[in-house]
C-alpha cells in the first residue's frame, strides 16, 4: 500500500466533510526536489465544530506567517477560526466569550436571523465586553457556504473569521465525493490602525504598481506624443491614477488559503474519479481575488450560500465577503494549483489539489495588473464623450455648481422609471447635493451596468487567454424566485469617496452623519447602487437577501454581498421581511467605517412613496 493510499484511507472517508490535509510533513518531501522539501506542510488547519451548542472564544494568539512573530486575534486559537458545521433546521446556540482587552463581536455573515443575533455593535447589541460571553441562539433556515467574522474595530484583519457551513435539510442538489472549504484571507504584520492611518496620510502608500516614466515612454513610442498627451489629459485633469486598483496590497499583505501562506501551500487530497466541491470564501479584509485552477474548468453551483443554475467557467472573481461553491472533476494523474491572484496582481494565495501528497503543480505567473479606463470612471467607453463634461471638482469649480440639476424632478422620475422585477433599473442617475464638496472626488456621469462586466483586469480574458470568466449576468437561481412582487419603489444609493483624502461615504454622507435608511416592513424595494469611485466595492446588506437582477425574473439569484464595479451601477431587490436595525456597508474593511448605512425596517403604513435618498437628504437643508 502506498503512502498515498494509506493517507487517503486513514484521513478521509468518502463524502466526508474535510478541511484539508493536515500536518503530514513526514510523508511529504521524500525523494522530491528541494523546493518541495521546503514546503512541508507546517500549517495548522482549523478544527471543525458541530452540535447544537458551540463555545467560541475570541483571544490573542501568537502567529508567525512572515518570519516575524505577531499577535493575532483569533477564535479558539486558530487562524482562521474553527469551521462551524451545522444542518439546516437546527436551532443552534453559540456562546462567544471575549478574552480580548477590547469589545468584540461575531457577525454570522449571510445568515437570516433576528436582529439581536446579528452581532453588529451599536445596531444589534452593545458588543461583547472584555471577559463577557454573549449567547447567540437562532434557527438555521438555510443551507450553503457562509462565514463569520468580528464586526468590532479592525479585528477581522487580525484573524477573527472562519467558515460556517450548513448542510441542506433535504437532499443537496449539489453532489460531490469530497468537500473542501477554501477560505481566502489577507494578513499583515502591521497593526490595522497603522494601515488605516497610512492610507489617510498617503492614500497610495501600498501601491507599488504606479505609473512610471517608462510606462509613459512606451505609450509615446506606440501612440506618439500628441495622442499620449490627449489620452493622459483626463487623468491629469482629474488628478487620478489609472493604476489605482487596491488600497492595501501585497506590499504589506501575505495572502492565505485556509490560513496557509503560498510557501506553506494548503493541500487538499482527492481520489480517482472523484467530484470535489470547493467552497471558496473571501474572508479578506481588503483583497478581491481572481480564482482559477489551471487545467480544470469549474462548475459554479452556488454563490453566497444559494444554489444557482450551474455554469462552467475557467475563472471567477470573488469579492470580499462573497462565497462561491464550485465542482471540479480532476483527473487522478495530476496535481492542480488553486490559484487566487489579487485583483491588482500584487500577490496571490495558493494551494494544491492533488491525488498524491508528494505532488505539486506549477504555480502560474500572475496576469498583468489591470489599468483603469474611461468606463471605470463612469464615462462612456466609446470615447465619444467630451472629457470636460466629466464631473470633477477643481479648486473653484464644481463644489456647488450643479444648478442645472432639477431636484424637484427627481421624485417624479422615481415612479415612471421603475422597471420590471429582475430586469434592473431604468432610472436616471442623479447626484445628490451632498455628493458635492471636498469629501467626494468624482461622480459617474454615465455609469454602465456592471452585470455583464467581468471587472477590471478580467475583461479580455476570453479573447486573449481563452478563459471564460464568470459575470453576474451568468448567474440564475436554481429554484424559482420566491417573492414574485414588483418593486414598489427604488432607492438610488451612490458609493462615494475621496481617494486622496481616504474618505468614504454613501451619497457623500459618511455613516457617522447619516440617518438610517428606512424600509417599511413587508415592502419590496429595488436598490440601485451607483459607484461614483474607481474602486470595486463589495456591498453587504445584513438581515435580508440582496436579490440581484440578472435579467430573469423567474430565477433571481439571492446574494448577501454584491460587487459594484468602478464607475458602474447595479440593481437588486430587497424584501423588507426582517424588522430591526441592520448594517449595510462596503465590506472592504477600511472603507467600512465611512461607507455604511443603518437600514431600519419598521412597521408602518404600507407605503412611503416619497422616501428615497433624495428627499432623505433634503432633511438636512
Amino acid at each position, binding site marked *: 500500500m502506498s503512502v498515498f493510499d494509506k493517507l487517503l484511507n486513514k484521513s478521509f472517508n468518502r463524502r466526508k466533510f474535510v478541511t484539508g490535509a493536515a500536518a503530514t510533513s513526514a510523508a511529504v518531501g521524500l525523494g522530491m526536489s528541494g523546493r518541495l522539501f521546503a514546503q512541508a506542510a507546517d500549517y495548522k488547519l482549523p478544527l471543525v465544530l458541530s452540535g447544537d451548542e458551540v463555545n467560541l472564544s475570541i483571544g490573542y494568539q501568537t502567529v508567525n506567517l512572515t518570519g516575524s512573530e505577531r499577535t493575532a486575534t483569533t477564535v479558539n486559537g486558530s487562524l482562521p477560526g474553527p469551521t462551524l458545521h451545522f444542518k439546516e433546521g437546527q436551532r443552534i446556540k453559540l456562546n462567544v466569550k471575549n478574552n480580548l482587552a477590547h469589545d468584540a463581536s461575531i457577525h454570522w455573515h449571510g445568515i437570516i436571523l433576528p436582529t439581536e443575533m446579528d452581532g453588529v455593535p451599536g445596531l444589534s447589541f452593545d458588543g461583547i465586553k472584555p471577559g463577557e460571553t454573549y449567547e447567540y441562539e437562532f434557527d438555521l433556515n438555510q443551507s450553503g457556504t457562509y462565514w463569520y467574522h468580528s464586526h468590532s474595530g479592525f479585528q477581522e484583519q487580525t484573524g477573527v473569521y472562519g467558515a460556517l457551513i450548513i448542510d441542506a435539510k433535504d437532499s443537496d442538489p449539489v453532489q460531490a465525493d469530497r468537500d473542501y472549504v477554501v477560505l481566502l484571507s489577507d494578513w499583515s504584520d502591521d497593526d490595522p490602525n497603522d494601515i*488605516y492611518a497610512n492610507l489617510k496620510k498617503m492614500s497610495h502608500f501600498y501601491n507599488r504598481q504606479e505609473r512610471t516614466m517608462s510606462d509613459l515612454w512606451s505609450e509615446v513610442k506606440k501612440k506618439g506624443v500628441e495622442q499620449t498627451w490627449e489620452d493622459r489629459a483626463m487623468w491629469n485633469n482629474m488628478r487620478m491614477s489609472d493604476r489605482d486598483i487596491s488600497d492595501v496590497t501585497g506590499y504589506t499583505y501575505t495572502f492565505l488559503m485556509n490560513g496557509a501562506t503560498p510557501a506553506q501551500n494548503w493541500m487538499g487530497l482527492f481520489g480517482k474519479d472523484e467530484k470535489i466541491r470547493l467552497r471558496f470564501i473571501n474572508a479578506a479584509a481588503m483583497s478581491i481575488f481572481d480564482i482559477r485552477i489551471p487545467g480544470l474548468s469549474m462548475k459554479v453551483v452556488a454563490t453566497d450560500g444559494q444554489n444557482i443554475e450551474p455554469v462552467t467557467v475557467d475563472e471567477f472573481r470573488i469579492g470580499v465577503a462573497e462565497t462561491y461553491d464550485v465542482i471540479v472533476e480532476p483527473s487522478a494523474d495530476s496535481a492542480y494549483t488553486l490559484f487566487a491572484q489579487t485583483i491588482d496582481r500584487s500577490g496571490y494565495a495558493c494551494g494544491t489539489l492533488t491525488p498524491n501528497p508528494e505532488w505539486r503543480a506549477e504555480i502560474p505567473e500572475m496576469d498583468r495588473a489591470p489599468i483603469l479606463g474611461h468606463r471605470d470612471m463612469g464615462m462612456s467607453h466609446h470615447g465619444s464623450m467630451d472629457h470636460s463634461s466629466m464631473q470633477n471638482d477643481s479648486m473653484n469649480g464644481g463644489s456647488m455648481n450643479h444648478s442645472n440639476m432639477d431636484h424637484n424632478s427627481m421624485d417624479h422620475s422615481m415612479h415612471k422609471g421603475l422597471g420590471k422585477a429582475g430586469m434592473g433599473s431604468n432610472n436616471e442617475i442623479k447626484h445628490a447635493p451632498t455628493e458635492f464638496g471636498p469629501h467626494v472626488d468624482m461622480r459617474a456621469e454615465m455609469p454602465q451596468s456592471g452585470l455583464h462586466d467581468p471587472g477590471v483586469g478580467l475583461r479580455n480574458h476570453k479573447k486573449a487567454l481563452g478563459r471564460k470568466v464568470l459575470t453576474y449576468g451568468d448567474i440564475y437561481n436554481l429554484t424559482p424566485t420566491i417573492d414574485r412582487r414588483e418593486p414598489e419603489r427604488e432607492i438610488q444609493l451612490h458609493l462615494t469617496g475621496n481617494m486622496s483624502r481616504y474618505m468614504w461615504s454613501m451619497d457623500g454622507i459618511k455613516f457617522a452623519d447619516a440617518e438610517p435608511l428606512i424600509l417599511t416592513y413587508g415592502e419590496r424595494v429595488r436598490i440601485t447602487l451607483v459607484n461614483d469611485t474607481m474602486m470595486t466595492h463589495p456591498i453587504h446588506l445584513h438581515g435580508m437577501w440582496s436579490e440581484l437582477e440578472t435579467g430573469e425574473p423567474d430565477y433571481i439569484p439571492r446574494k448577501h454581498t454584491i460587487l459594484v464595479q468602478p464607475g458602474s451601477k447595479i440593481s437588486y431587490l430587497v424584501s423588507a421581511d426582517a424588522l430591526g436595525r441592520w448594517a449595510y456597508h462596503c465590506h472592504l474593511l477600511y472603507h467600512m467605517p465611512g461607507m455604511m448605512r443603518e437600514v431600519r425596517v419598521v412597521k408602518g403604513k404600507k407605503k412611503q412613496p416619497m422616501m428615497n435618498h433624495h428627499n432623505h437628504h433634503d432633511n438636512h437643508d
Partner: protein
Amino acid sequence: MTLKHSLTAITLCGMPLMANAGAKDDPLLSMVMVDEFSWVENEDDTYIFEGEAWFGYDLNKLWLKANIERHHGDTEEIELQALYSKAVAPYWDFQMGVRKDLLPNPDQHWAVIGFKGLAPYFFEIDSALFIGESGQTGLRFSAEYEMMLTQQWVLSPEIEANFYGKDDAERSIGSGLSDTEISLQLRYEVTPKFAPFIAISRNNSYGDTVNFLRAEGESANSTEYKIGFRAWF
C-alpha cells in the same frame, strides 16, 4: 431643528443611538513630515531643515510649518507657521494663521492666508500671502512635481518664488519678485516613509534684492548641490 440634530440631541440624553459597528472613520491623527533635511555643498557649510506637521481630522487640521537654516554652525534663519487648515475642495486646503520669523533678528510677525493642494497635472502647490506687522507683504508660491522613474526612484523638480510688497534693506529684500529657487531632486524611496536624496538647486535674486545682497558682499545667484533625506511618520 433638523432630524439629524434632534437625533444627536437624543444621543446626548443617553440613548445609544451612535452605532460604532466597526472602527472610527475619522480618528484624530497626526503626521510629521521632514520635507527636506539636507547639507548644502557651499562655502557656508549650510544645513537646511524644512518640515511640516499636522494634527487633526479628514477635513480640519492644525498645520505647523518650520524652515530652519544653519550656516557655519550658527542658526541664521528660523521661520515658523501655525495654521488652521480646512479642506475646501477635493484636492485643496485653505490655510490661515500666523507666521513668526525668530531669525534673522529682529523677529517678525505675519498673518498668513494660503492654499495648499494638488493642481491638475499633479502639481503639488503651496501658496501663501503674508501680511507683516510692519506693513510688509509677501507672497510665496511653490510647485512640485513627482516623476516616478521606477516604483522607488523619483525625480522631483520644484520651483519656489517669493514676492514682496516693499523694500526691506535690513533683510536684504527688494520689492516685487525677490528670489526664486529652482531645484531638481532625485530620491530613492526606501520605504514610502523614508527617502534619501541628492539635489541641485539654482537660486536667483531679482530687483533690489540683488543690490542689497551685493552691498553686503553676498552673491545674488548661486547653484547649490545638496544631499539629504525626506521622511514622515
